[in-house]
């Protein structure tokens, strides 16, 4: 069956790259949700992962390295009716973009954030990313990574992100469902997705991800402390929904103008005469 979002043409990723798998998953998810192409916008930064929107038939804003989230929020501000999905790399989101990650979670716009976590900087040829595991030797980390990797799930939970999940390209069905639910969820939804970079990460391979992950069972995602505890589990890493907070109002609904009505910005006009009166 045809998928209107699928775009033909060359894709500049390496053969075997995990991005292909995630692309397929995302394409199925948005198709299965029957999203309206007119109202669907992808946002990304810069990196291999961030090229993803280029290869789909969608509106997109392919911005700067690390800066997808504020752009996505701006889009949501201009038109809250749009479905906004961010796709970017681990370096992009947790490295250069770390501050936006923190504060976008606090702000809680209704966006879905899919992080292609290959634990390395792919596009710039193999330097450590914030999620690179300890000991990984790279052209820059010549004696191996020694910094504590970011744990994106624990971090997001500590900030009370309203939907926090981990997927893996090795588990396409699970990951697709996580993404679908994330899109349906109203609020900031993070799905960190494990995927291999076949060119620069010789440690965390497709096989490694398979062997070092398992599906979460019997977990109440509304228990924050338990979610945190689960997020600390490593080797193997749990996959699934870690945390869910249904009680947060989304950012755009908090803005006075959208409390008044839902019309997007380009349809509105302001009359300034009143203000001038107050200045007399």
């Amino acid at each position, binding site marked *: 069956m045809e998928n209107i979002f699928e775009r033909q043409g060359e894709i500049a990723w390496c053969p075997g790259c995990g991005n292909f798998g995630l692309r397929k998953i995302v394409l199925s998810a948005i198709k299965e949700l029957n999203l309206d192409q007119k109202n669907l916008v992808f946002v990304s930064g810069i990196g291999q992962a961030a090229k993803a929107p280029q290869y789909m038939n969608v509106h997109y804003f392919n911005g*700067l390295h690390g800066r997808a*989230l504020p752009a996505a929020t*701006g889009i949501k501000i201009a038109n809250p009716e749009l479905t906004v999905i961010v796709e970017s790399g681990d370096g992009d989101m947790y490295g250069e973009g770390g501050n936006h990650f923190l504060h976008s979670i606090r702000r809680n716009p209704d966006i879905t954030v899919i992080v292609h976590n290959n634990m390395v900087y792919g596009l710039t040829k193999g330097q450590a990313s914030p999620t690179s595991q300890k000991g990984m030797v790279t052209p820059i980390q010549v004696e191996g990574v020694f910094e504590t990797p970011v744990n994106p799930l624990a971090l997001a939970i500590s900030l009370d992100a309203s939907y926090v999940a981990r997927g893996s390209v090795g588990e396409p069905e699970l990951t697709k469902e996580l993404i679908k639910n994330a899109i349906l969820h109203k609020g900031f939804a993070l799905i960190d997705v494990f995927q291999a970079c076949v060119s620069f990460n010789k440690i965390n391979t497709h096989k490694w991800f398979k062997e070092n992950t398992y599906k979460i069972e019997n977990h109440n995602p509304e228990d924050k402390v338990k979610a945190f505890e689960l997020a600390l589990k490593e080797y193997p890493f749990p996959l699934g929904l870690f945390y869910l907070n249904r009680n947060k109002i989304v950012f755009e609904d908090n803005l006075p103008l*959208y409390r008044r009505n839902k019309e997007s*910005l380009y349809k509105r006009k302001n009359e*300034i*005469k009143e203000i001038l009166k107050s200045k007399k």
Partner: protein
Amino acid sequence: MSNKLSIVLAGEAGQGIQSVESLLVNLFKKSGYHIFATKEYMSRIRGGVNSTTIIISDEPIIGWYEKIDIFVPFSLEAIQRLKSRINNDTKVIIDKSQINYENSENVIDIPLQKISEEIGSPLFSNTIIAGFFAALLDTDIEILKSILIDLFIKKGQDIVDKNIIAAMRGFEIGNNYRNLIKINIKKDEKIQEHLLLNGADAISIGALAGGCNACFAYPMTPSTSVFTNMATYSKKYDIAVEQVEDEIGVINMALGCWYAGGRALVSTSGGGFALMTEGLSLSGMTETPVVIHLAQRPGPATGLPTRTEQGDLNLALYAGHGTFPRIILAPGNLKQAFELTALAFNLADKYQVPVFIMSDQYFIDTYYNIAELPVNDVKVEYYIIKTTKDYKRYKITDDGISPRGIPAYGDGLVAVDSDEHDEDGRITEDLDGISLQMKNKRLRKFEKIKESCIEPVLYGDEDYRILLVGWGSTHNIILEALKEIKNREIAFLFFPQVFPLHSKTAKYLNKAQKVIIIENNATGQFADLIKSQTGFEIKEKILKYNGLQFSVEELINKIQEKI
């Protein structure tokens, strides 16, 4: 020659200078005086010395005179710090029981402390002073009363009553001094109907008039005033206002917003704007419009955070890596601030480029009355098109402008890209093909922009011998100075648009025997720009960079030295 009276209040931050200021300014304007007010303040919330200059006149006053007619110091330090502005005729109003000021000639001693305590709290000093001036300037005490009622009614009748008592006490004292301090300034009823605005107000209202419907910022003096205005307006008007985590987030949020159909304003100052440099380049590459209010203060780095300077022109001109067009506007008065800010939104939308409004602390914090704003002359122009299925965001066109669509309006897909891209907005490395065409398209757009620059404004006779050149906030001060100099050989060429420069620029400059640039910075950045754009070297420079604006008096002297 206008009759004018300059009242200066000075004291520690937190001593209530601002509340006296707003009482007086309000009162004077409502009483029919032309009014001008500006303040200078330290980067602290309490203590130090801040001051406000209020000038009352029977003609419009638009520039800062440093001379003080009546000085109200709230602390000894205030006298120390402002002593160079005190002359033999300056009357100094103090409460001698509080301030031990030696030089007793010209001192008017008012027992503020004692009277306030009689009324019930030392806080009433400010109202007593207001009452004093109400009398001195021959205003109707009822006006002051009604101001006080408006101001304090929320705090209860008791507070209102006591303030009115304080005002009356001040009024009585003031009446006693009307013989000593003779003031002869005519009132004009019409002024009651005037607007009283500062630069921040004019810019904010201009933004709204230009269709602005979003404002993003991270607090930074002096740009915060505009942000605060927008936040206030957001209660009633359709403006999405958000304080972002940092300035990088600010500009990227603004670009996302414009991309999806909003018209966002960014308000920032030098250091904050420095952080937006990469985002500016993104605006250039993706051809996403954005309007940036850049309120200057002295740098480098944190510099003098509450002071004024025109030191960030170079930054605005060259910020961002790579080559892309931009437009820089620099209003010189309230009317221009209103018009140019509104225009900025139209230009940004039309040309899909970043447009700057340059102001500075002096401009932002300076008030005066004007009859009206040209509200009806300002039209919001929208350039967004409804897309069709075959829509291409970066269509190659003759004038370099590709019609701009937004998501969800029409049937097309809108893809924008920070990489070099093809017409569809997809990455390309076709170096000599579409990639080069895209670069040339943006260059053509820049040529197009150059065709519709705002012409510089010439004040004075066409057959000038000497030409003063200025931009931005010096405008009004220069005009005041010229009013006093009264030399028909001198004209003043003012640039509301500083980049790109209008094609007639060189012609204006070449006509003069002598050209003098006046800039509130250390090196003459605008003179450098003129040189690099026209080859015309302006050799005579009047520069000031201590963190304060020029005073009219000093500018008169400096101009006269040069001619």
